[in-house]
């Protein structure tokens, strides 16, 4: 009997070792006397020094295989050493199996993940270090009675590392600590479905740093083996969660063998913090829910017939609310964000898109044999994103997105390899991605409010209301910011055949999809480069310093109406070249404002015709410095070209370069002095712009007497007042009282101040395709500008 009990205990121990999460080097082994003090130890103790290796572990699915090569379980500190395990097993009075366990200095790793049908390609290696101490209790009877199990689990993980390694370079989460408690979890088998129900899972976690190593001699260590210094860090993370979840697992992939997972999760509360040198960017008071329907795992092929580990999704629906986005030393909030989304198969531009990720080996072809390629397809059927601050809410309604193409993931170091320039960090590559997104419109105040225009207000944040494009290029996220921790970005992005809306009408006004009308930059080719851009969280907010940035945006046609067939204003080309430009995003909007007038008090403001506004403590402030550098080459300069009168080619398409061009050449900023005496005009001031953005009520007056576009009648000069009881949701009021003024329409209120010392244009030319260039203006110099604006932008139906 004792042998039977011990055997059963060992089997559960194996389960615990295999599935329970992990942790720490700081923990000390318990000696025999210490063990005796652990309560309720009437069972047996198992002490194991575990060292295990396997050349290959394979998972077979319909004759195809995923292979984990170089598998090892052992010591994290000593590549030849073993991991310490102590498991104390006890059977309780209620026949429950109770385990107390302690795991020290354990590493689980594999050097390569390969697909049998794709020889020579590896997805790279993964390692997981941890110390773990916890309790596990298992008893019979699940949620459906005698056939299942119920278990409680609680553990603490310390000193964890989770890393990804390709071609000798690593990115890893360092110093992971985690506390998890899951009580009353049930496990049942119902009609061939394994049902896992977790009524409540509570946990907290922290990642001390995310580190990078470009030294092949380093493996799973926090300090460089050569210099002994700490490896550079992207910063750390922390968070907590309180969840309820129900998961169904069953056999059967999308095709033949495989695995299917369905899940419903309720997020009762959660938080997520990014830490950079002690400064925090925090997403707090998060709640929500999501449902994963029909997620399948297969060893299969992608749409190009390439061997893959396929994850295909039937549908995903959910909602996420973020109660506060805080940053800066004062802990002020930008406001609240809510996202409601439905992910599932859908048709865009007459093409069906689904949701799938096909994992393949290799990564970027020039980066080396190891790397990850994600053949990806997505379809966001619909999402509503809302932003609230100081109680005012704007909903960006009907967001849809679709795309298909390859992404590659490699950990790279700065070098030229196989003719390609790589940079230190995690490199995300884009290869042949055809994608797009579009917004239907705005709703103000509530989800069922009338759909309105106004999505073009997002242009202030650099976001087009609708955009379709083909994307290639790379984005490398390196460790370290402007100082200490942070992120350094080097990127090369190319967009072709782009069509982006500057102004966009709805694509569905309630009667099905229609051609989205707007002002479009179409036949767009964009080529942009960033070198040494740093991203940091500091005491004021989120700071971005661009380093060197240059780009060319060639708009084949600026169309009005339909994005494909609308009449064109001609071709526009915008070249930009900036050095050390910067942006700071910080919480808090304009505060108190005199809109439309002048004055520092309510009385003074209103005496000049202005409206005194208290815009509250939330909102956002964006501080921008753009330093336009002088031209150094045809690629690196600031210039603007407008071309019209192009000849049509054989296909009836205007041929670029055959028309007449107006060229504003070599546009640059300056300080107007040579303070450092180097013989050149200094250029450190640039164009400095402060934008304070709030969602706030604004005065909207009727411009003509009679019925408006919604049939609502009013006289010229009447004020628009929101009224949910009115058929159109609003009415016009000649002289609104106090109770009506609080129901003025919501919009975006922007307080802006832009200033520069000097802005120059070297020359303005007219260029004829055969007549050549003729200079119209031999120089423009603008000096000493300080422009201030209080603007409110309200969407209109």
């Amino acid at each position: 009997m004792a042998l039977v009990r011990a055997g059963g205990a060992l089997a559960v121990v194996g389960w615990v070792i295999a599935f329970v999460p992990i942790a720490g080097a700081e923990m000390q082994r318990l000696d025999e006397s210490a063990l005796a003090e652990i309560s309720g130890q009437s069972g047996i103790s198992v002490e194991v020094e575990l060292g295990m290796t396997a050349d290959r572990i394979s998972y077979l699915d319909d004759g195809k295989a995923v292979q984990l090569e170089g598998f090892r379980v052992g010591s994290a500190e000593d590549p030849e050493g073993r991991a310490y395990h102590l498991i104390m097993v006890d059977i309780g009075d209620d026949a429950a199996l109770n385990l107390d366990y302690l795991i020290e200095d354990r590493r689980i790793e594999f050097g390569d993940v390969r697909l049998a049908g794709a020889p020579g390609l590896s997805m790279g290696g993964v390692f997981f270090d941890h110390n773990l101490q916890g309790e596990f209790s298992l008893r019979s009877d699940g949620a459906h009675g005698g056939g299942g199990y119920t278990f409680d689990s609680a553990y603490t993980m310390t000193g964890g590392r989770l890393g990804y390694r390709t071609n000798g370079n690593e990115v890893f989460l360092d110093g992971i600590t985690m506390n998890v408690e899951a009580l009353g979890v049930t496990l049942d088998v119902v009609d061939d479905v394994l049902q896992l129900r977790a009524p409540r899972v509570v946990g907290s976690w922290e990642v001390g740093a995310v580190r990078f190593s470009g030294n092949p001699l380093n493996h799973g260590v926090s300090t460089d083996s050569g210099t002994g210094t700490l490896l550079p860090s992207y910063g750390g993370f922390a968070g907590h969660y309180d969840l309820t979840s129900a998961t169904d697992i069953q056999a059967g992939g999308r095709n033949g063998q495989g695995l299917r997972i369905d899940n419903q999760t309720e997020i009762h509360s959660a938080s997520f913090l990014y830490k950079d040198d002690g400064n925090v960017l925090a997403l707090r008071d998060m709640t929500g829910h999501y449902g994963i329907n029909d997620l399948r795992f297969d060893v299969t092929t992608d749409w190009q017939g390439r061997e893959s580990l396929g994850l295909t999704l039937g549908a995903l629906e959910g909602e996420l609310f973020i109660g506060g986005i805080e940053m800066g030393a004062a802990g002020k909030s930008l406001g609240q964000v809510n996202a409601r989304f439905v992910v599932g198969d859908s048709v865009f531009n007459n093409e069906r898109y689904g949701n799938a990720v096909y994992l393949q080996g290799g990564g970027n072809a020039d980066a080396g044999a190891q790397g990850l390629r994600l053949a990806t397809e997505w379809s966001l059927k619909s999402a509503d994103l809302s932003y609230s601050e100081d109680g005012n809410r704007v909903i960006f309604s009907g967001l849809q997105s679709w795309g298909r193409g390859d992404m590659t993931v490699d950990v790279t170091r700065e070098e030229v390899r196989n003719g390609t320039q790589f940079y230190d960090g995690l490199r995300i590559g884009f290869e042949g991605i055809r994608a797009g997104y579009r917004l239907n419109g705005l709703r103000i105040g509530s989800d069922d409010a009338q759909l309105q225009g106004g999505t073009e207000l997002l242009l202030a944040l650099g976001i087009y209301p609708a955009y379709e494009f083909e994307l290639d290029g790379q984005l490398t996220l390196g460790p370290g910011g402007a100082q200490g921790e942070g992120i350094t970005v080097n990127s090369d992005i190319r967009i072709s055949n782009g069509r982006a809306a500057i102004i966009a009408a709805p694509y569905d006004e309630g009667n099905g999809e229609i051609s989205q009308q707007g002002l479009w930059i179409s036949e767009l080719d964009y080529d942009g480069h960033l070198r040494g851009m740093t991203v940091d969280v500091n005491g004021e907010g989120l700071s971005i310093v661009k380093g060197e940035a240059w780009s060319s945006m060639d708009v084949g046609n600026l169309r009005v109406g339909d994005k494909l067939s609308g009449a064109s204003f001609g071709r526009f080309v915008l070249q930009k070249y900036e050095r050390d430009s910067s942006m700071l995003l910080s919480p808090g909007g304009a505060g108190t404002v005199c809109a439309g007038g002048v004055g520092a008090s309510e009385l003074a403001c209103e005496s000049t015709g202005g409206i005194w506004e208290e815009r509250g403590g939330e909102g956002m402030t964006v501080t921008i410095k753009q330093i336009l550098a002088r031209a150094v080459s045809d690629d690196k300069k600031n210039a603007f070209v407008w071309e019209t009168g192009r000849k049509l080619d054989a296909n009836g398409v205007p041929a670029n370069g055959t028309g007449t061009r107006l060229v504003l050449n070599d546009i640059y900023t300056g300080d107007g002095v040579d303070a450092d005496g180097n013989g050149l005009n200094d250029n450190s001031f640039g164009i400095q712009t402060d934008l304070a953005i709030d969602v706030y009520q604004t005065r909207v007056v009727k411009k003509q007497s009679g019925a408006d576009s919604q049939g609502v009648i009013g006289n010229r000069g009447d004020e628009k007042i929101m009224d949910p009881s009115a058929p159109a949701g609003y009415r016009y009021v000649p002289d609104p009282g106090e109770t009506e003024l609080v129901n003025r329409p919501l919009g975006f209120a922007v307080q802006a101040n832009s200033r520069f010392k000097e802005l120059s244009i070297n020359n303005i030319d007219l260029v004829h395709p055969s007549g050549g260039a003729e200079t119209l203006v031999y120089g423009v110099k603008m000096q000493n500008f300080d422009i201030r604006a209080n603007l409110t932008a309200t969407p209109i139906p």
Partner: protein
Amino acid sequence: MKTYLRASCLVMLSIFFVAKPVVAELSPISDRGLSEVSGQGGIYLSGDISINELGGPIENAYFGRCDNTEKKCGARFAYRLKENGGWMVLDDIRGNFAFEGLTLRIRKVDSGFGGDGEIFDRDVVELGLPNTVRFNDVQFNMAGSSTARPTDPGFQQTDIFSVEMQGSVVMEGNLLVFPVGNP
């Protein structure tokens, strides 16, 4: 070559000048009439804009804050039409203006306007003009200058005339912008 340049100038300028007569023939359409046009939606802008209300960012021998009467606190815009020639200057640009109800949207005109809309039948960018624009202390000087900067060596400047604007301007109706000719 000048012939070519003149022709190309005409092509580009026709976008503006051809558009005006077309618009001028159209009669206003009511707000209600717009309800039958698909793709409505846009933004309604109100606010105020000031230029160098207190002064600009440069403080030197020429520029200063506005409470310093010995220096100019406005902005300066200089350009020249001849290589190595003198500079035309808009100097000491200052002022404030406020407006209410500038609208921006895309609109398809295919009806109304006394029957002209059906013939017109095209998409336009519509700028709905604010009924009233208030100007406060708007001013600038027109001048000729020997140098781009007033602090450059050999600087000489001749002020030609000054402009000051105060009061309200009524701007009613819509400005419709649309392309014509070969893009």
